[in-house]
């Protein structure tokens, strides 16, 4: 499903080059859930951005289902969830979820129905017409989860989705993410600091010194 090989990434800070990733290999099977842990600054977000094709590696290759990861294919293949929820403040919950579908074309009745169902699935059936600033942090993150799943991607990348949430809410969001992905057969790559969350995933990896330990 997803294959990354020999990913290297370094940043220039002043006149010193800091190597963040030093040749990372990763393969994610369809429907599998993988957890990535690591110290702060170990390059987890950097890796996820490379996997998403948002950033280009210095060396190495990322493939989705055998073809190269490009921006144009992202909308259809990939859902992303971030630590900050990044909802569009002018749009209500339903429209935020539909925004993912809009990238592929004008949403019709079927898409609206799916968006409403997804919101119901994440427990926000009563909140579809709320604007982001009328939602709690946990509710916002659940809207973001629904948005990530809108286009029925084969893979969801989640970068510390619980980072801005309290423990109880965070647990609920991770359970939701794992549950929905399992139901729909979606592969999940979850970056987290939380050992309990990591334990729930099918496979746990630890990033250290620019490689998986």
């Amino acid at each position, binding site marked *: 499903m997803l294959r990354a090989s020999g990913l290297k990434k370094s940043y220039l800070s002043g006149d010193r080059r800091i190597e963040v990733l030093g040749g990372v290999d990763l393969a994610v099977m369809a429907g599998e859930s993988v957890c990535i842990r690591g110290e702060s600054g170990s390059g987890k977000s950097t890796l996820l951005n490379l996997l998403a094709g948002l950033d280009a590696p210095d060396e190495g290759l990322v493939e989705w289902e055998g073809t190269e990861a490009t921006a144009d*294919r992202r909308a259809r293949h990939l859902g992303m969830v971030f630590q900050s929820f990044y909802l*569009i403040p002018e749009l209500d919950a339903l429209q935020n979820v539909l925004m993912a579908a809009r990238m592929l074309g004008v949403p019709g009745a079927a898409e609206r129905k799916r968006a409403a169902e997804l919101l119901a699935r994440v427990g926000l059936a009563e909140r579809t017409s709320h604007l982001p600033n009328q939602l709690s942090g946990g509710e916002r993150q659940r809207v973001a989860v629904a948005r990530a799943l809108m286009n029925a991607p084969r893979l969801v990348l989640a970068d510390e989705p619980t980072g801005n949430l309290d423990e109880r809410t965070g647990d609920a969001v991770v359970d939701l993410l794992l549950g929905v992905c399992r139901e729909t057969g979606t592969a999940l790559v979850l970056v987290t600091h939380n050992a309990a969350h990591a334990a729930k995933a099918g496979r746990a990896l630890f990033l250290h010194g620019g490689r998986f330990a």
Partner: protein
Amino acid sequence: MPWYLYLALKQLFPTGRRFPFFTAISILGVALGVALLVVSTSVMAGFGHEIRRMIVDTQGDVQVRADGLVADSAGLAATVAKVPGVVASTRFAAGLVQVRFGDKRLYPTLQGVDIEHINGVIPLDSYLRRATLDDLDDDSVFLGIKLYDLLGASIGESIDVFSPMLLDDSRADVVTLPRSLKIRGVLEIGHQALDESTLLVTMRTMQDIYKLGGATKGLNLKLADNEDPDAAARRINAVLPPGVHAASWLTNNQDFLSILQLEKNMIFILLLFIVIVAGFSVTSSLLISVVRKTREIGLLGALGANPRQVAACFCFQGLIIGLGGTVAGLALGLGTLHYRNAIITVFTKLTASREAMDRFYQFSQLPSWTTTSDLVLIVSCSVVISTLAGLLPAWRAAKLKPVEALRSE
């Protein structure tokens, strides 16, 4: 509707916000500029239209002149009358004279009036005050109203007219007396220069004073409605004998008409700057919006948007503001024009300047002439400017890398 257009609309008119100030103020800026352009070009065109009408009303549509004098003007009139499009003709003759009244000496133009035919070409009666054309006989004169004021004469008094021909006579030791003419009426054309320098007499008196015999200087022609004056002049030239030429009023007044046009264009360009300044304010508010929405722009990238679509989102915001402002500005401008006389009445009452207005502009009503071509020009300029205004923010937004945008605090 593609997502970038949808998002552009949503960012300008957010759900649940009753009045989008941000958008309203940008739109208002463009609208004011457009309204001013509409009002001023229409009023300028109105003045131009009045002046053109006045030129045609005093010279006819086409003028036929000879290199020297036209001896057989009746024959010439008959030739010209056969040309299609020519409706009427009247003979004219004019020349400078000196006028004395008391100790005043002025140098107006003496014009001979072809009394039987003039009203077919020139609505002279509508310019006459305190007299009709029938009052003019061989010993009387009509004065332009400004000339009348300058001389300080009154109706019924006589003025002395000296023609340059007297110089020839005195060289030949012949003593000729000036012609004494009685003032019968005044003439108000509404053009300062004409009202200051016009002296109307019968054609016979003119021919006598200028020693023309039976000759005239040429013909003024009236054309059928909607006839192109230049085309008609070409047709007339084809049948004229050698040494006689026809020229349309457009050709005869080319310099003056191009000054009018230049003036109108200058005002257009100056006022266009208001729209350009409004465009800059649209640019700056959209730039602020790009900075404020950096993280959302990153998110759009993560959702699969490409930079061109992100750019389109901001470009469309400029365009929508431009369209909104243009429509509002057209409505405001045309509304102002519709109520212009009421507005001026209030304004002149406030400043107590009604008399000055009447005296300097000759109009108690402000002329206005709105043409489709002017409106099309204004609309296209304002839409192009607002689209350009969205270009810089769009470029900034497109240049943002999703990773860096998402990382930004």
